[in-house]
Structure formats: structure tokens, C-alpha cells
């Protein structure tokens, strides 16, 4: 198995077909609702924002989509393939080739005891790369793209600042050229100037690589900058969805109106 023979990336991309099609996705925690009857389509190159208060089911939805948790009901089709019906081997392969997951806390997504280069190289080695020089070159290239100095390649992430760790996590996820990226509060816990740079970087990467992104956040500024479309969740249900600017400028649902008006104006 070589890097280039991964079957997923070989498919011809049809921009008119949704990359991800979700129908009636439901997850319950016993009697409580995680998320209820969520449906949406995500097209190639599209960025979908999911906003809502804490406990509204955003993260549950994301982890069900990414296969970290098993949904109780519903269907997920990725590129025409039924994700929930896949064997675990296939799903995990998808998870390290075609998909990427950026955690809120970089410590969850990085190996803290392994150097930055090893962190970026892990996904390459996981899909069969066995040439040290090539792996290192590619790691070097990706560190450059996320603005980490090349002389930090052998440092461990524990020696990095929070913003650098988050950028390293992004490099580690994007190195295998995924088509769909899940992001859970990628800017949470960073100060505003670092947030701004990270958002700038993300926007550039998303545009250059034509990524499809599902981004969960409670920061409306993040979705305003990044997302094309927006889904507003409350108590596990989607209460409103539409184009980002439309939802934020002309909110219809009472909860969305509350959310938009709660943003602090500086």
C-alpha cells in the first residue's frame, strides 16, 4: 500500500453531488436527547457552521458524524457510501485518509511525547509511507504552511504555545490531503490576536485545498468569517439553518435572535 493508491482520493469529484448527506440523525443518552432528527447536505468545498449554546448537541452531532460515537437512528452517506453500515476497518481508514478531526484541545489530537515532525508524519506512516526522507520533507513542508519555523520540527508539542499546538494539529490532520474536516471549537481557549491569525490561516487553507468543513463553535465571529452556511441548534434540535449572513443578519427563530443579540459589541 502506498500513499497514492488510497482508493478514496482517486474518485472523481462531482461538485453537484453532496459530499456528505445526513438524514434524520438521532442520538440519545438514555432518556435524554443528544441530537434529534438532524438532516443536511454538505457539498464539496462548502463550510458548514454549527452554533448553539453549551449542551445543545453540537459536539454530539459532530462526534456521531465523525464516527467517534454511534448514532441511534438515521443515515450518513459520504460520497455515496453508507458510513454507518461500513465495517470499522473501513471507517477508521476513512478517518485517517479522507477525513480529519481537529479537536478543541490540541492535547486530544496530538501525541505530546512525540516530536512535531513525528506528529505530522504519523498519518503518512499510518497509510503506508515507509521512506524517512520523504516523510520528513512532507512534515517540513506542512509545518511551513501552518507557519511553524522549520527548526522546531524535532521539538515536542509540549514546548509549543497553545496557538502553535493548534496549528500543529491542523498540519497533522491535513497532511494526507483529506476532503472533509471536522472542527470542534478550533479557536477555543486562544487569545483574540492568535485566534485572528488562526482563522486567517484556516480560511486560506480551506480555499486553497477546496476542503469541505463542518465547524462547531459558539463564537459567531468564527462562523461569520469561515462558514458559508449555518445551522443553529438548541436542545438537540436544529432550529434554523441557511446562509450564514442571512441567518445572522435576519434571524427568524427566537433562540437565534437571542444568540445574535447576545454578542458583545466592542
Amino acid at each position, binding site marked *: 500500500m502506498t500513499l497514492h493508491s488510497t482508493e478514496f482520493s482517486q474518485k472523481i469529484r462531482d461538485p453537484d453531488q453532496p459530499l456528505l448527506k445526513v438524514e434524520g440523525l438521532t442520538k440519545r443518552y438514555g432518556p435524554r436527547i443528544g441530537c434529534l432528527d438532524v438532516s443536511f447536505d454538505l457539498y464539496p468545498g462548502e463550510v458548514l457552521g454549527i452554533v448553539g449554546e453549551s449542551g445543545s448537541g453540537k459536539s454530539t452531532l459532530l462526534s456521531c458524524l465523525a464516527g467517534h460515537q454511534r448514532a441511534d437512528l438515521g443515515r450518513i452517506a459520504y460520497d455515496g457510501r453508507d458510513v454507518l453500515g461500513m465495517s470499522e476497518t473501513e471507517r*477508521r481508514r476513512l478517518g*485517517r485518509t479522507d477525513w480529519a478531526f481537529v479537536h478543541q484541545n490540541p492535547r486530544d489530537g496530538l501525541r505530546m511525547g512525540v516530536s512535531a515532525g513525528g506528529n505530522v508524519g504519523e498519518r503518512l506512516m499510518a497509510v503506508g509511507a515507509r*521512506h*524517512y526522507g520523504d516523510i520528513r520533507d512532507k512534515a517540513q513542508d506542512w509545518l511551513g504552511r501552518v507557519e511553524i519555523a522549520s527548526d522546531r520540527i524535532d521539538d515536542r508539542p509540549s514546548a509549543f504555545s497553545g496557538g502553535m499546538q493548534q496549528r500543529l494539529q491542523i498540519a497533522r490532520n491535513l497532511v494526507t490531503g483529506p476532503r472533509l474536516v471536522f472542527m470542534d471549537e478550533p479557536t477555543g481557549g486562544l487569545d483574540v490576536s492568535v485566534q485572528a491569525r488562526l482563522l486567517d490561516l484556516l480560511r486560506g487553507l480551506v480555499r486553497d485545498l477546496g476542503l469541505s468543513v463542518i465547524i462547531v463553535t459558539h463564537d459567531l465571529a468564527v462562523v461569520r468569517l469561515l462558514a458559508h452556511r449555518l445551522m443553529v441548534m438548541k436542545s438537540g434540535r436544529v432550529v434554523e439553518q441557511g446562509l450564514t449572513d442571512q441567518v445572522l443578519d435576519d434571524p427568524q427563530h427566537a433562540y437565534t435572535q437571542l444568540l445574535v443579540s447576545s454578542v458583545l459589541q466592542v
Partner: protein
Amino acid sequence: MTDYNFAYLDEQTKRMIRRAILKGIAVPGYQVPFASREMPMPYGWGTGGVQVTAACLVPEDKLKVIDQGADDTTNAVSIRRFFQRTANVAVTEATEEATVIQTRHRIPETPLTEGQILVYQVPIPEPLRFLEPRETETRKMHELEEYGLMHVKLYEDIARHGQIATSYAYPVKVEGRYVMDPSPIPKFDNPKLGQNPAIQLFGAGREQRIYALPPYTEVVSLDFDDHPFQPSKAAHDCDLCGAKDSYLDEVITDDAGGRMFVCSDTDFCAGRRAKGHTGRLGEAA
């Protein structure tokens, strides 16, 4: 002698261990869980190996026990005496004569033959343990053949030291399927694991795992295309027997920087000296 059942363990326990061994041989490199017993020695002294040896021994066997290649060190002597007392089997120091060899961290220099059983003492059977602490996760990784992480360790070695610095317990892939920890043998011994005519059994007492390599199994040491696996040894000849191709121990001989290199396999070294080979400091036997 009559105070003990043959080879210390009761028959039902030996039966349970034999089932684990057979399963291990049927699935080379797969770690089979077994109900490890308390043995009259501390964990880390070879409780896993001793249980596997006890399950394999028959009264006609000739047992050899080595510790880091030597027949005369504490661990080897006490385990050998243990089986002399509890099983009353014949013992030997000669590799060719032995039918069962229990070893701690070496493979004898003398090539093994069909019909011999080599039993390894294993401290930590899980090759991925120090990279991934969760047992649930490592089992899943074995199940799904997700071994990319093993190469991350080798990558880190090269990034930090310029070469693969792992020199013992060097990970191997068995029959193109399971990644296995060959116990802390020096990587010099790794090439002897594959296509070996003898049965190789691995017992980890504290971790309660048995795994095995049946005769003539394909065993490949992991590496990178541009940093191939290299077995290594001290760049010297044995000072006693003059052997050029055996694994050597470095022995400090005085406070003035004096040192000598001797074969770690004492039986091999003594055999060569008996045939008249001598090294730099050796005297003809």
C-alpha cells in the same frame, strides 16, 4: 520429589497453558491471554517463561536455561535447579543437546534444530505499549492492523539520533500480519527469529500473555526504505575464543580503563575454546 506434581504446576493448569500455546502457534505473533499463576519467584524473574516451560516439559526432556546468554548466572542457575527439583529432568549447558531451552534475552549462537523448543521470558509483550497506553486501543490496533504508530517510534529515533537507536526489543512483523515484541533480545538476534527450525514460545507472566512462532515462520524487522534494519554488535572479536560473529558483552576489568569483550553465549564460547580457538586474552583450553 513426590511433594510436587511433575514440573510444579498441576495438570489442569498445564492443560490450560498448552491450549494457549497451541492457539499462539496457530496464529503466529498473536498475544493469547492465559490465566497466569503465582510462581515461587518474583515477577520479572521469568514467571511467564517458567510456566510455559513447565507446560512443555516431559520426563525425557533435556533442559537448558540461559540468562543473557550465560548458563551460570543467578536467574539461569535458580530456574534450572527449580526444574531439576520439581521435574527431575536432565539438564545440560550444550545447546545442541537440549530439547527445551528457556532463555532470558538471547538466542543461542549455535543454530537451533527441528524438535527443539526455545522459551522466552517476556516482561512487556505489547510492542505498542509505550506509544499507546490504553490496552483497549492497542488491541483494536492489532485487530485492524493499524501499525503506523510503530514507525512513529522509529521515526523519532532517526530524528533524534540520526539512526534507528532501538537496539533491543526491536519490533518485528510476523507473517505479514501481527507486529510482535521479540522480548528484550538484542537486535543482533532478530535475524535468527525468522525461518528458525525450532518452535519459539514467548511467556509473559505478569501481563498474562503467551505468543509463539512456529518453525520456519517469516519474521521481518520493521524499518524505513532509506534506513534499513541493521543488526548490530560491538566492533570487536571475543577476547577469550576469538569469535568474530558472536554477540559480545563488555566486561570492565580494572579501574584504569581496562576492558575486555567476551561472547555473551557462554556455551558457544567454551565450545570454541575446547576446539582450540583462542582470542586476545584467552588461553588454550
